[in-house]
């Protein structure tokens, strides 16, 4: 047996780094002849820069990052692609105790109903506006992030203009609690464990979760430099097989105790294992009691790591909606081609696992778990969908974009 090939992956300390951590710690990478090193980073900008100069071969990335890079929206020009997703869900919207009290006064009950929570928030905003209070400020981790887009989607669908009625600022995930404690933000949308950390500190209340805003929705991807992928096709395929096996291991509830222990290590998330275990199980302490959320974080089931091009196009539609890029057929094509199900299929085909036959699906079409067309075996998708009942059909991208513009009013 020849020596393992060294490969370095950058990651941020978030729950959905789990698949990468398991691939290294549980030997899945080694089985494919890969000596995987994981390097924790402090910003997505560093992830991008270090993959650009070759410090990292692959990285944990926000799903819209490769799209933004390929559309030339980043200060450093770079071709990236996403041959695999790193799970579905995993985020929550959390507000300060003070804001929660005001929302409860307007009829917000709990985190199961994003529409009711949004209506209460809207009432609070209107009341504050009449009194001349400061504009509420929400933190998200990056402009090109699922967090930014799902927060804005939720606000807009509840009649709150994210550009006018609130201020959205960028806060690094590990600093969200500090920012809230210092009164710099009134709420945030961030990945676990950072919502639970703020709740455990007595600072905050979870208002709703990503899985309630858009069930079975994409969050992070494995990002790879396009030219590197071109030159190292078979090595990338080996890595994808290792990550596939790691995702199955992460998806088995029986492994959650061990996974929580692994992730809690100082080199990874450096947070209490019990808190991570709860997030893996989707049982979050909201600040008003523990709640179980369906499909809170899905690392394996429902083709959770398949890089759907309809997901890429939805992110693109939101970039257009919020003025990050102008819409054209060419830009849409660049966005779609940033996600690469063809590489995913080529890598996993030898394993004989079920692979979706389609590369796009209608988001929000499945009300119940539904078997879908696959290469082998059986695959069940759904339920999926947006809380406001809207449907995103990637075949009608222009109409979807037009229907969302102007954002409100």
């Amino acid at each position, binding site marked *: 047996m020849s020596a393992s090939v060294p490969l370095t992956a950058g990651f941020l300390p978030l729950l959905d780094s789990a698949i990468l951590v398991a691939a290294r710690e549980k030997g899945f990478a080694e089985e494919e002849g890969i000596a995987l090193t994981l390097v924790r980073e402090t910003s997505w*900008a560093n992830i991008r820069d270090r993959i650009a100069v070759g410090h990292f071969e692959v990285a944990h990335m926000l799903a819209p990052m490769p799209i933004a890079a390929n559309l030339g929206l980043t*200060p*450093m020009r770079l071709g990236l692609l996403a041959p695999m997703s790193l799970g579905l869900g995993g985020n929550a919207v959390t507000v300060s105790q003070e804001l929660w009290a005001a929302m409860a006064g307007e009829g917000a009950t709990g985190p199961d109903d994003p529409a009711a929570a949004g209506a209460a928030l809207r009432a609070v905003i209107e009341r504050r506006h009449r009194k001349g209070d400061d504009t509420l400020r929400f933190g998200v981790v990056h402009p090109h992030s699922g967090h930014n887009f799902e927060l804005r989607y939720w606000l807009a669908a509840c009649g709150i203009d994210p550009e006018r009625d609130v201020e959205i600022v960028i806060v690094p995930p590990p600093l969200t609690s500090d920012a809230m404690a210092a009164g710099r933000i009134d709420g945030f949308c961030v990945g676990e464990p950072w919502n639970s950390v703020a709740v455990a500190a007595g600072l905050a209340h979870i208002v709703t979760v990503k899985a309630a805003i858009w069930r079975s929705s994409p969050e992070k991807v494995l990002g790879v430099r396009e030219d590197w992928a071109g030159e190292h096709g078979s090595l990338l395929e080996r890595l994808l097989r290792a990550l596939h096996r790691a995702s199955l291991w992460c998806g088995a509830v029986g492994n959650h105790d061990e996974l929580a222990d692994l992730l809690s290590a100082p080199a990874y998330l450096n947070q209490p294992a019990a808190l991570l275990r709860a997030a893996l199980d989707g049982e979050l302490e909201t600040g008003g009691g523990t709640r179980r959320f369906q499909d809170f974080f899905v690392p394996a089931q429902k083709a959770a790591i398949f890089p759907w091009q309809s997901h890429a196009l939805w992110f693109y539609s939101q970039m257009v909606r919020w003025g990050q890029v102008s819409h054209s057929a060419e830009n849409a094509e660049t966005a779609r081609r940033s996600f690469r199900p063809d590489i995913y299929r080529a890598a996993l085909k030898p394993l004989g696992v079920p692979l979706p036959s389609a590369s796009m699906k209608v988001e929000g079409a499945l009300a119940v778990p539904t078997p879908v067309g696959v290469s082998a075996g059986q695959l069940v998708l759904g339920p999926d969908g947006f809380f406001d009942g809207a449907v995103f059909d990637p075949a009608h991208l222009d109409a979807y974009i037009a229907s969302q513009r102007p954002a409100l009013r």
Partner: protein
Amino acid sequence: MTAKQLSILVIDENTIRASIIEAGLREAGHDHVTLVHDVHAIASRVRDAQPDVIVIDLENPNRDMLESMFSLSRAVKRPIAMFVDRSDQAAIEAAVDAGVSAYVVDGLRQERVKPILDMAISRFNAFSRMERELEDARNELESRKIVEKAKGILMRSQGLSEDEAYRRMRRAAMDQNRKISEIAHSLITASKLLGGG
């Protein structure tokens, strides 16, 4: 000098390193240099200083916030490019290796900005080297202390002279292909376990 002086913002939580960069910039004739140590002040300082060039250390978790400001034209006059020339891969690599990043306002000519970046990169490298040397010196001092202590133990317990004690440790180090400080460390540990001092 007819060209307007460039306004340069240095964002670094490490105050010593920031001062070293600032000194370098001033030596090179740049008078409009602003230092920011407090991460929470970044947004307002960028707005106030309207910098042409921003230099930031890569350990700073607020880079994402900074970059998001660049996409809001109302916040700054758009320093959109990273480094001077996006095709200058060697400069980008040198900067990332050194642990520094820079943003440059659109339209600045390469020859005005390149020397600033080169200076920042070389000072970041010099600072890392200095830290390493300091660390080495600290380790050196520490191991010298350990060797002295181990020598004392050998002299007392074996009735050896100082030279003989040292020679014996050095031979053990050579025989076992280890550093003399490691031998000394083992000896101190063993002596403690055996109830010596």
